[in-house]
């Protein structure tokens, strides 16, 4: 069995010795037995640390949970700077969490969280920050400052939390380069290894935003044209 890995160029490796191996096991095999210069990231091997996301045949996967097939083409994530081979620089992507103020604003007294409250954002708090969604998102081609799927899911996690005392502050900051820039294409949902739908979270944030008096600026500009009359 042969697979190709995008390095400076596509390099083919024969991994016939392996049977039913995950991509991470395959990369480890290549690095320790064939070519120690092959460079990639990994951590927990069990789909929870978010280190090993790559693209296989143009679709984002966790290397540790993907079973290798004949002819697979392995590439680094998109929308991020490639440092070397499959290792990318996540600094800028992570910064969108800060720019989106994705954290709790503590209330003076913490209300009890009911089972129903907890279920509201249980799935969102499963996020492992692997950035598969970030890589799959087509918006970055037109807006590199888009706050992006994982940060917006984190914002939804906190604004839907009864313990948060200031949802408005977060809703305010995601109006620009945020929820209205999403095209609702659903690519993020398709690649999430934790079954999170950032697209659905963004739609819910849009509804919340209208409750705070914000309007879809795409409609706003249309209305704006009428102001001259």
């Amino acid at each position, binding site marked *: 069995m042969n697979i190709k890995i995008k390095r400076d160029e596509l390099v083919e490796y024969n991994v016939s010795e392996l049977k039913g191996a995950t991509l991470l096991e395959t990369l480890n095999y290549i690095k320790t037995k064939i070519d120690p210069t092959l460079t990639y990231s990994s951590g*927990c091997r069990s789909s929870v640390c978010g280190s090993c996301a790559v693209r296989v045949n143009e679709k984002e996967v966790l290397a540790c949970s993907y079973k290798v097939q004949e002819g697979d083409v392995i590439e680094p994530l998109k929308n991020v700077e490639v440092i070397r081979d499959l290792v990318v620089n996540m600094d800028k992507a992570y910064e969108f969490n800060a720019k989106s103020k994705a954290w709790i604003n503590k209330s003076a007294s913490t209300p009890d969280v009911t089972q129903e409250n907890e279920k509201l954002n249980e799935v969102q708090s499963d996020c492992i920050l692997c950035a598969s969604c970030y890589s799959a998102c087509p918006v970055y081609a037109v807006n590199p400052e888009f706050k992006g799927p994982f940060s917006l899911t984190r914002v939804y996690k906190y604004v839907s939390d009864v313990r948060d005392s200031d949802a408005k502050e977060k809703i305010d900051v995601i109006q620009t380069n945020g929820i209205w820039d999403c095209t609702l294409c659903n690519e993020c949902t398709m690649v999430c290894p934790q079954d999170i739908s950032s697209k659905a979270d963004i739609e819910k944030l849009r509804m919340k935003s209208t409750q705070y008096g914000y309007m879809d600026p795409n409609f706003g500009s249309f209305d704006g044209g009428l102001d001259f009359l």
Partner: protein
Amino acid sequence: MQNKVLVIGSGGAGLVAALNAHEAGADVTVLTKDYPTRAQTSMAQGGINAVLKHSQNDSVEAHIANTLKSAHGIASEEEVKKLCTEAVDAVEWLDNIGVQFSRTKDGKIAHRRLGGASGDRACYAQDYTGLKILHTLYDQVISKNIEIINDRFLLDIITKQNKVEGVSVLNKRSGEVEVYSANAVVLATGGYARIYDKHSTNAVGTSGDGIAAAIRAGARVSDMEFVQFHPTALKNSSILISESARGAGGHLLNSKSERFVDELLPRDEVARAIHEEMQKGEDIFLDIRHLGEEFIDEELPQERKLAKLYENVDPVYDLIPIKPVAHYTMGGIEVDKNSQTKVEGLFACGECANHRVHGANRLGGNSLLELVVFGREAGVSAADYAKNISVDASVDKIESNNILDEINTYTNDINFYEARTALGDMFYKNVGISRDKKSLQESLKTIKDYISKLHLMGVKDKSKIYNTNLIEFLEFKNMLELSRLVLKGALDREESRGAHYRSDFPNENEAYAKHTIVDINGVVAS
């Protein structure tokens, strides 16, 4: 320079230390080997122990008693009391900052039973407890605008007259050695269970880098021979299946479908019972089928996913093949009541430290608790220390450069990856659940042989940019240094206690009810 606190490591302990040092007024920077949410903490599944106000049929005293019993006489009663008493506050704080704990019907944090506990005491977030705690801590750290610098591998701790002055790190992206000066340094770099290589539940980077650097800098370590084997890892991949599966009523079965041990005993006893069955040729399985699909999907969703993905079995319908593997290292850097090491201004917390709360065997649910309680202590202590001390900001990096230059001259006669695999296999067999003098001595001989041949095991990749071949060599070198200390402790301790089981000395011996303390020159006290 004043008030500068460096935190090395960005798992739960490091982030708690950073938050607390920041709150205590320090100027904090976190340096991490990868990225802040990729740490081992994300892999903790079962829960965090705390007797809360609404806990029924349980008490802080019972938590203390269970912890001390499991520690087999070598925990500090005072530190265990601190750990268990501060547990309520720790969990309430986590709840306050947004951790999504699972809830009871009346809106209280839910509890479940883990091994060795006399009550349902572990607070949990499905079986993603560590993941959700770690990510929530990270969100808090960015909310305080605390600086995090990614992709820095710790080389050495820089000291002058036994006082910390900073650290040297390898910038993985540029390949350059960088020096960070500081008034105080907190190590939160994790344990060393990857010595066991593929026979470990741990993440690949769990190579004890901080512990090895601390010894080189003059700190002491202790109880390195105590390595916890988790009873239930998946047979083929060593991926953890949480103890909460047994806590909820899961059974351990042999090939004849017989139960052979009380599944809720502490981990050392369960792991030993499994080991004995396996020695008889039995295959061992975890059976949770009777818990039902609804319960499994609600309480143990990750376990189902992992079993399907990595063992090709669905726990709702199938038995899960398991084996015990190395999971947690009780030993670590010696610290005092303020989490300070023997080096002034150098603090430690989390798995890399030995706060003497786990003794010979850690209880499930106490490690997430430890990282909050002692992460806080280390952070506050470091900030207090940093306020009152000034250091020369112009520390140099010559020594660390020398190490890299030296490694660059090593030849490639031996593939160190093969040596790493062999080391893990040998440790699992000879320094695992059962040990004896002969197997330990043989292993020590092999380790010394590896160390003497390091110059033949060089790094083939000569690139400066993101050289993971070099990083893995440095990790292997650290693991070899720590292997020797594990073996030294295991050889000296001619008794069986907790996780340290000597088949040639199967009983606990009062004469050894003490810690094995080691510095760079060897055993200093025991």
